[in-house]
């Protein structure tokens, strides 16, 4: 393994290539003990599960699009392989049953009405007035009342990749919850720090679609966090288009283009974070998407054999890295070499 560790890795940050096959996963699982045993640092454990926390923070009919955003992402992460029991869905309002909805019990994110986001199998964990800053913080930190059922808890561990998606109305360093509360950037940073200390995640991807989303990340300082915001400080995030049947905007631009990107993916596709970043076009977004990657680079990068920037793993359960792929190849080669050497020696 020493050879592997010393292998030079140029342009590592820019090269987040993912390939995932069931076979590789299998191989990965087989050889998983070898790198973890070899790596001295205990903090970096294997990536073994994926979670998603999807939050829509705004009420009221005219915020239809926020619920549609969240439900679209819910559908996408489910499609890409995260099961319902590992998704915490928080919706502040029920647009489907709003009296103003022209399509009762349905929610659409496109005016072509091809895809009903509120069909069967939508498990909303926190709804209506349950979506509060307090509950949000409790979900993330895991400090629940003992009566709270398992389905409402984020039961992640140090091997978890978590996607945290939030949408609503925000401003400079805050995100509004339900017109009555605010989540501040300090709160978010604090809760992420607590999660890190409690070993509740290995990697955390925060995706925020609000006005001035980038400001929400300004206080973050825990390692392993990757943050994407829809707009910079002083910028607004805009809705994508208006559904003139329903009479409201149905999706936000940032979410729309993120979804467009994901729609091209399937469970087995090759995609990198860079290609997602590249897909954001400021003229289409009418705002500048923001990525905060500085926390993601860990000092003990080289120690890790199978970890790299495959943040999309968060979305895909059975996922492996091209790096780990090659590492595994090298590992196998070394083993075979050692085996032959040992057999040769023993003979």
């Amino acid at each position, binding site marked *: 393994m020493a050879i592997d560790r010393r292998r030079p890795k140029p342009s590592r940050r820019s090269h987040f290539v993912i390939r995932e096959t069931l076979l590789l996963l299998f191989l990965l699982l087989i050889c998983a003990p070898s790198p973890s045993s070899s790596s001295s640092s205990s903090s970096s454990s294997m990536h073994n599960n994926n979670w998603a926390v999807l939050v829509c923070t705004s009420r*009221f*009919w*005219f915020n239809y699009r926020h619920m549609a955003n969240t439900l679209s992402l819910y559908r996408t992460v489910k499609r890409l392989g995260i099961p319902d029991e590992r998704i915490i869905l928080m919706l502040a309002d029920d647009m489907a*049953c*709003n*009296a*103003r*909805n*022209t399509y*009762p019990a349905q929610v659409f994110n496109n005016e072509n009405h091809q895809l009903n986001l509120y069909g069967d199998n939508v498990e909303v964990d926190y709804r209506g007035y349950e979506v509060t800053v307090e509950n949000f913080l409790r979900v993330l930190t895991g400090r629940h009342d003992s009566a709270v059922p398992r389905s409402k808890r984020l039961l992640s561990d140090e091997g978890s990749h978590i996607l945290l998606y939030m949408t609503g109305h925000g401003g400079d360093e805050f995100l509004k919850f339900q017109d009555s509360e605010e989540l501040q950037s300090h709160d978010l940073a604090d809760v992420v720090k607590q999660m890190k200390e409690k070993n509740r995640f290995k990697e955390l991807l925060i995706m925020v679609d609000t006005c001035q989303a980038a400001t929400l990340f300004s206080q973050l300082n825990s390692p392993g966090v990757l943050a994407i915001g829809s707009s910079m400080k002083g910028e607004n995030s805009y809705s994508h288009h*208006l559904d*003139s*049947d*329903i*009479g*409201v*905007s149905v999706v936000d631009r940032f979410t729309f283009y993120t979804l467009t990107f994901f729609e091209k993916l399937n469970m087995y596709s090759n995609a990198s974070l860079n290609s997602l970043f590249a897909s954001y076009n400021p003229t289409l977004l009418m705002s500048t998407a923001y990525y905060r990657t500085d926390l993601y680079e860990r000092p003990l990068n080289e120690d890790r054999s199978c970890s790299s920037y495959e943040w999309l793993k968060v979305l895909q359960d059975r996922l492996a890295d091209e790096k780990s792929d090659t590492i595994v190849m090298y590992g196998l080669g070394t083993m075979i070499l050692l085996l032959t050497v040992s057999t040769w020696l023993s003979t």
Partner: protein
Amino acid sequence: MAGERGEEGGEEGDPNLKKRAHAARSRLIVRLGAFLVSHSALVSVVCCVAGFITLFLLPVLAKHTYISENALMPGSANPLFSSQDVNEANRFIKGIIHKRIEKEEAGIELQKFIGQSIADVGAEVHYHKFSPHTNHFNPLHFFSSTSNTARIDTNNSCASFGVNTVGIIRAPRGDGKEAIVLVSPYNSQNMEYNEALSLGLAFSVFSLLSKVTWLAKDIVWLAADSRFGEYNSVSSWLNDYHNPIFSRDSGNLDSISNDCHHWNEIRIQGANSNFFKRAGTMAAALVFKVMEKKEKGDRDCLTMYAEASNGQMPNLDLLNIVHYLAVHRQGLRVKIETMGSLLNSAWVKFTGEILEGVSRLSKSLNPQWKFDVTTADYVEGAATLASSMYYQALGVPTGSHGAFRDYQIDAVTLEFLPRFYLRNENAQSTFLLRSGRLIEGVVRSVNNLLEKFHQSFFLYFLTAPNKFVSVGVYMIAFALLVAPLPIVAAALFARAKANEITTDDCAEKCTPIDTKESEIATGSWKWLQAAKVLLMIHSWAVIVSLLPYYISHMINLNSTMSMLTWVSLSISTLPFLYALFGSPFSLNVEWELLKAVMVATISIGLGLMSIINFSTAQIGAMLLVPMSLLVHPLKAKMNVNALLRAALLTCNIAFAFLGFPPVALLVAKGLSEGFGKLSIGDFWEWMEFLWEWNSATYLYLLWVQLPCWLLCIHILLHPCSRGDSRHKQ
């Protein structure tokens, strides 16, 4: 003031006064006050001029309207109102015209037809019966427009009832707590074609709304029988809507009219259609009428009327969505009332040209300054602003939407003026399509509302259908006009005090004062005499304001006779009061003190009125403030040159003439509606008009303007004998 006194009356050797003066010096606010008071003449001139300039600048300072409430989202949905609904409307119009022709003495046929149509659509229907309630002069009902519930007189035959038809669509998935009201007035006795058209429009929108799936609020359609006036029918329906009658009368509403067989017909027709049905709290109301076209225009027109009683306005957002949808979606031309006489006024044009010159100058100095004024814009803005102010100041609603405002419901009247003659079928169809879509759009937008209208302004003037002056801006002019009043009052008081001290010095040397009476007359309590005069004149004004109550109870008096009785009674009361309390001349009140007290009361009166009806206070201040500040006894000596003195005297007389309430009313009325033939009786009718509508302007005219004018006349005619003798001493 203390500083002032210390300064002026500061005797050399009085350590007490010196100390006080010193204490006053140490406080900035007192020094500032003293400074303002000592320069009161300059301050009042500057403030008044600035106030008038700000007032004339208001059309320039107007901002464009914008939709403030996020929830409204006007025009975000495609209108569903289609040509099919137009056909529906046409069918309805034909039906109703047929009914009218069929039955000459239209009893209750029209109501029945409307009710049947509502029932066919699948909505709830009921008939609301009301009797005309004549407006009486109610001295104590000025601010509560919830008039006494109209008791139905059992002896009335059915001919003296009006019958409103009310249809209610329950929102299929709504909570039933809120409702949107559509009102279409028509005269059931003598229906014109345009009224049939507006009924048809209302019906087609109503039938469309009964089919849509997006309703969150109930829809109420009130086909208001306006045989006793539009306002009357709407207000009596609203009254019954908000004040449920729990006595046995309510159930017996039909038993009362057993003799009226029309009523029985209705009763047979629909079960429960006689019970008063209610929906939830009203979120907004739209009153719409189609008018007969008078002149040819290139587009269909829409006129908005918004003023309710005592200058109350609906929330600006309601007007905004109507304007937005009408202009940007349906391509209608939106108008509001303008003061026609100002449009052609040379003065306004001149002011506009000056402002245009200034804007050009400022642009040449710095092109980045955004101060763009054109004469035409200014003239139009000024004329619209003046009419907006006038109708608010009058305190009388400009249409039946005013009845809603009394229940804090935002309402607006939309008057459609088609481009073509109404009988033209094609034009009628396109017109119906447009106006139907507009109404549907407004209803859908209001339907999106989650709370009462509250985001936008309630206190504003309009200078164009899409431009407004908010309260924060128009307050400035009023504040500048009223600001000098307390300062001048203080200055006059201080001057009188100063004079007094010097005269008292003499008096002590010359004649010893022994009686207490004379001490009050001359001592430091002398202002009480002035206050007494003021109180007397104000109580006279109160009596004058109450006299019409008794005069209106006298029968067989035409308006001219009533007016003459009123005037003669008022004038004869005055000497009586003089005899009782002593006339201002016999009381030997100094005119300065009298003026000080008068100015103080004017500032209080205007301040109070500005809370009740700002526009009245604003217009009143334009008259009262210069009048009261300039007033000076004709006989008093002045140390100024002859030209200034002559100018002052002319101004005094001119303002004393203009300030007389009937003259002021006449000028205001003449400017807005044009001077026509005039008789003494007209004044009586105007007054009747004001009190019938419970307008606070009536109170203002008689309780503030009239006594102040009388005091000014007193001051003008003041003999000044005392002052002269004092000067000789």
